[in-house]
């Protein structure tokens, strides 16, 4: 079974975000593989262990995103492609167009990625890739079985979950709960250094900048106003609880 895992490098979830030059500063930020993409890579590896085959990791990002790709290789992926778009001025349309082009040159039965990234949280790149490749997509998957040319996926839906059956090839996006990603072993980290890591640019995919130009234009970055600390209601627990109920009623007028 040939599986493509789509990954993205993001800021560490603990990172403090500051502005520099009117944009989000990348200085001093530790970078990680998007946690939802870790679920995707883990699931790809589990499927490979069960059915045989190979896992190819594809990312779009600057050269430093190599680290995220290496992590996936160290976890057990077989090969990887990093496409550097050569600009920071990208949006989901840009990324999806590039990913779809890179993936279309590969063989695949299943394409899997995180359902969203923890940085821009837009949850649309994998879906867009499916649309470009004319593949079905099942989002927010918490359980996945693949066998006999089809996938059976349990997916979060409005007010519950649904079990969906879909023929391969398909795009799946991983939701928290799908699995517990493994840590790369020391052996895995050593082996990863020898695994193929292809770094390419738009031209190598036959794309030019105008074909992937962002549709979205960011006008301004800002930090949210800090929420002012409110008041601590004094007193013993019972007394404070009564005062709180009263404040919510009479002052905040919310209950």
């Amino acid at each position, binding site marked *: 079974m040939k599986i493509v895992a789509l990954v993205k490098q993001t800021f560490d*979830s603990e990172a*403090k*975000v500051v502005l520099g030059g009117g944009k*989000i500063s990348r200085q001093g930020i530790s970078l990680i593989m998007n946690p939802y993409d870790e679920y995707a890579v883990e699931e790809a590896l589990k499927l490979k262990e069960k059915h045989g085959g190979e896992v190819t990791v594809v990312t779009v990002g600057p050269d430093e995103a190599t680290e995220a790709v290496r992590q996936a290789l160290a976890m057990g992926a077989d090969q990887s492609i990093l496409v550097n778009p050569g600009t920071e001025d990208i949006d*989901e*349309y840009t990324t999806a167009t590039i990913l779809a082009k890179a993936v279309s040159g590969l063989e695949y039965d299943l394409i899997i990625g995180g359902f969203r990234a*923890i*940085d*821009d*949280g*837009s*949850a*649309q790149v994998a*879906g*867009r890739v499916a*649309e*470009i490749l004319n593949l*079905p997509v*099942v*989002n*927010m998957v918490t359980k996945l079985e693949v066998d006999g040319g089809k996938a*059976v996926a349990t997916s*979060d*839906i*409005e*007010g519950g*979950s*649904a*079990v*969906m*059956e*879909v023929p391969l090839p398909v795009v799946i996006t991983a939701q*928290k*709960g799908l699995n517990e990603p493994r840590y790369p072993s020391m052996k895995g980290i050593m082996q990863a250094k020898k695994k193929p890591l292809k770094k390419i640019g738009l031209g190598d995919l036959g794309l030019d900048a105008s074909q992937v130009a962002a*549709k*979205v*234009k960011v*006008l301004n*970055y*800002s*930090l*949210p106003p800090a*929420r002012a*600390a*409110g*008041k*601590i*209601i004094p007193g013993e*627990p019972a007394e*404070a*609880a009564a005062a*709180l*109920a*009263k*404040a*919510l*009623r009479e002052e*905040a007028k*919310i*209950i």
Partner: protein
Amino acid sequence: MAKGILVFAEQRDGKIKKVTYELLSAGKKIASQLGEEVSAVLVGKGVSSLAGILGEYGADKVYVIENDALENYTIDAYTNVVADLVKQNEPTAFLLGCSITGRDLAAQVAQRLGTGLLTDCINVAVENGQIVFTRPIYAGKAVITATIPEARPVMATIRPNVLPVDEPQAGKSAEVINVPANVGSIRITVKDVIRQVSARPELTEADVIVSGGRGMKGPENYKLLEDLADVLGAAVGASRAAVDAGWVPLSMQVGQTGKTVSPNLYIAAGISGAIQHLAGMSSSKVIVAVNKDTEANIFKSSDYGVVGDLFEVLPVLTQEIKKLKA
């Protein structure tokens, strides 16, 4: 020629979701500034009777797309019929709610139309003739304003429960346009649906949420939150710590890796206030924290704090609110 603001009227089981009214109010505001009209697209089976209420909430036109195959949401069928409608009508903007369904559908439609999409927006305005959206990024640690200068339609999903709803105008009706459904091929078969049976409102739409964290000490103690939720008509949420401990299901998690909520009142009990949790609830209007640790981070983001043992505070709070509401 692109014209008008189109809103996706999300319904489930024959009931319009509240975010739809939020979209119509926002749509009406920007449409009037642009000198355009606001329409809604309503998709389903036997849903045409809902067109009237969309008119009362501000829709000038309602496009109704009905078909047996559209009874339940499927990404394939809904993308096909909605993208077709948008192509035919060429609206300036197409807005959806950032629910699971809205987010799912929006990405497919945006790509099929070759346009941009801003997800999970918390504000929308018109500046210099452009529709400008505000959205949090990095789990709310930063905020951007952005626009889609050229591609049409401008597409965005709007976070539920954030934008205000204008008073409906009784008797105001919308022009109803029935649109033939070209459902196309549905590649995904739904084998089973597991509904969470709950009398409580959904977290993302609730006006009041009571949420418990590590300080709850175990699943059996969520009864205290349930009791409080009962008197408030609230939804019950949880922090990641409580979910990771296996006390409550992931569907209850509020935060960066859970749900993003914006209720009028959020009561956090035994939640320390990690940045991941704050990301999911800091747009709540009033935040109350109950925690026995004076130094807990949650107090820095709360409007009201009670330093004390939640096992003593919550039962009294429940009783006091019950008395006030009586």
